[in-house]
């Protein structure tokens, strides 16, 4: 019957948040970014926030394309600069929720300095980092997360560099919410992203995710599911572990969990306090003015 044919195609629960006219997307089959994207949409829906109050900002990379598929005010910026762009966006419209979603290279190599300072300021942003251990978009080069010894197109003999621990870095810089999951911890990941969105301050969620095309292939784990399982099987949940001990060790100890969660004033809280004159002058104990004057004269 023609009526049956004319019926609207079934809708997916996330369709409201998708720019469906942009599908098919560019991601490879088996890529972990799609899972994270699904969790992000689920978390935004669960948050109950009005859609016009949420923005997504990305840098450049496969992960950076998330901004292009979400039907929100969405910004696809320059490589590494999503966080400072998001900082301006947030400070100009503090009532809005600003989520940064980008790759490991984008956020922590070229954008590393911005990451450090946004965490230090406790800028009220949610930063979601898909860690696929390489630069997927450009065909699989070395990233600051690439395991020692792993092969990429720019480390054909194996990586001579030590990677660093993003969660430990975030925590050391002052992030007030820090968590890590693999892309197969979908339910926990969604809850974590929701918590991160609701958290006031700099929240950081790292997702260990497969890039079968560029990374798995060169490191003898070609199958997308094999790579997904490889990470998941080695993961151990250790909530509230000191982030410095939350290693990514592929032999037996790929630590996941929520490592940090506490409240402290955000940049804007502090800015307003200072400008209202509510912050004591530094140093709080004061100085002996006459002594200071003598030194100056001397």
């Amino acid at each position: 019957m023609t009526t049956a044919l004319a019926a609207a195609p079934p809708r997916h629960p996330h369709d409201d948040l998708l720019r469906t006219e942009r599908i098919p997307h560019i991601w490879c089959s088996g890529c972990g970014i799609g899972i994270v994207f699904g969790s992000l949409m689920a978390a935004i829906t669960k948050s109950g926030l009005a859609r016009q109050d949420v923005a997504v900002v990305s840098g450049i990379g496969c992960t950076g394309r998330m901004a292009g598929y979400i039907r929100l005010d969405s910004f696809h910026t320059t490589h590494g600069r999503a966080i400072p762009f998001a900082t301006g966006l947030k400070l100009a419209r503090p009532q809005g929720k600003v989520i940064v979603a980008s790759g490991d290279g984008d956020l922590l190599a070229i954008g590393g300095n911005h990451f450090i300072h946004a965490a230090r300021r406790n800028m009220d942003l949610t930063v979601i980092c898909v860690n696929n251990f390489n630069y997927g978009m450009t065909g699989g080069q070395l990233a600051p997360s690439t395991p020692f010894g792993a092969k990429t197109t720019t480390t054909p003999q194996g990586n001579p560099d030590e990677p660093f621990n993003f969660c430990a870095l975030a925590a050391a810089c002052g992030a007030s919410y820090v968590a890590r999951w693999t892309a197969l911890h979908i339910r926990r990941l969604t809850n974590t992203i929701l918590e991160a969105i609701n958290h006031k301050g700099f929240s950081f969620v790292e997702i260990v995710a497969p890039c079968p095309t560029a990374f798995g292939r060169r490191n003898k784990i070609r199958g997308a599911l094999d790579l997904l399982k490889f990470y998941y099987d080695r993961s151990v949940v250790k909530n509230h572990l000191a982030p410095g001990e939350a290693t990514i060790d592929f032999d037996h100890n790929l630590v996941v969990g929520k490592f940090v969660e506490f409240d402290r004033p955000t940049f804007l809280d502090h800015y307003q306090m200072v400008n209202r004159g509510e912050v004591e002058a530094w140093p709080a104990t004061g100085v002996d003015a006459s002594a200071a004057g003598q030194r100056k004269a001397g």
Partner: protein
Amino acid sequence: MPGKAVLTGTHFMNGDEACCEGALAAGCRFFGGYPITPATEVAERMSKRLPQVGGVFIQMEDEIASMAAILGASWGGQKSMTSTSGPGFSLMMENIGLGLCTETPCVICNVQRAGPSTGLPTLVGQGDMMQARWGSHGPYEIIALCPASPQEMFDFTIQAFNLSEQFRLPVLIMADEVVGHMNERVVIPPADQITVIDRAKPNVPPAEYLPYHPGPDGVAPMANFGDGYFMHVTGLTHDERGYPTMTPAAQVEMTDRIVGKIRNNLDRILDYETLFLDDAQVAVVAYGISARSARGAVLTAREAGLKAGLVKLNVAWPFPEDFIRELSGRVKTMIMPEINLGQMVLELERLAQGRCAVRLVAHPGGTIISPRRIVEAIRQALEERP
């Protein structure tokens, strides 16, 4: 009590400070910056003044971040600005390109010092003029204003914001160390006598909104974060919906728009002043602090009976091509004094096409060009055989 955004009255202040007051009068409420001589006073005054008017100042970790932050703030609905000098200007180039491609209004004040590299941090230069025009990659048009006094720092900053809001692009104020640091009288008019232009907002329902569909003047209305239009903004080549479109045809359409909105509205953008040009045999064409040297030189030349005239470029980019072309047909020589080794003079040569002689009075930086050298050049030009 909230402070006043418009400090109506007569002041004695330096150019950097006047730039801040112009920005606030134009409605700027966000500043992201990084200290650098000789632009630091802009950031310092903004850090004091913005909280007084309910705005936000943030010292970012570098100039790349500063430029990114003012783009973000602009999409957040605030008029935004940064200030810098040579080394910082170089760092801003990629995100200036993002602002041009995504058609984001904002203002960058470059208080030029002598380069290359760290150069002479405390001393004057005008060596970033071609970088201003071409420094970010790819095809685009830019608007750059050149104030020659603290009063013009105030006036042109307002104009820079108005142009950025009207034409949706980062607008450059190409000041210099002398203009930034000199103290002079600055008259700030009452708020109701200052023209302030705000970006056009969409007036269609969200479902019908095409973020990059140009209006009659070639400029698309702009929605801000939170307005409910769910726009996508990308530095990839995009179509009218704002969606990445990886085709040569989309590239042609997009660049036509970002270039066309400037080229087709020159009458609303170009700004130059002339003096004694009617019977001039030599025209001195100058901008920024060098336009003051040039003015002194032309007055001296006239006193000596030499037929010299002045063109003071208030807007250096876009360059007043038609006017200079026409001028080159009726003078013997055009002279460009500039504190670099020959940048804007190339524009004069390009447009004169041999119709008149073109002479450069140059200094690589560290000091202004003395009027005496320009008078000398005028004299020589008049003596040269055609």
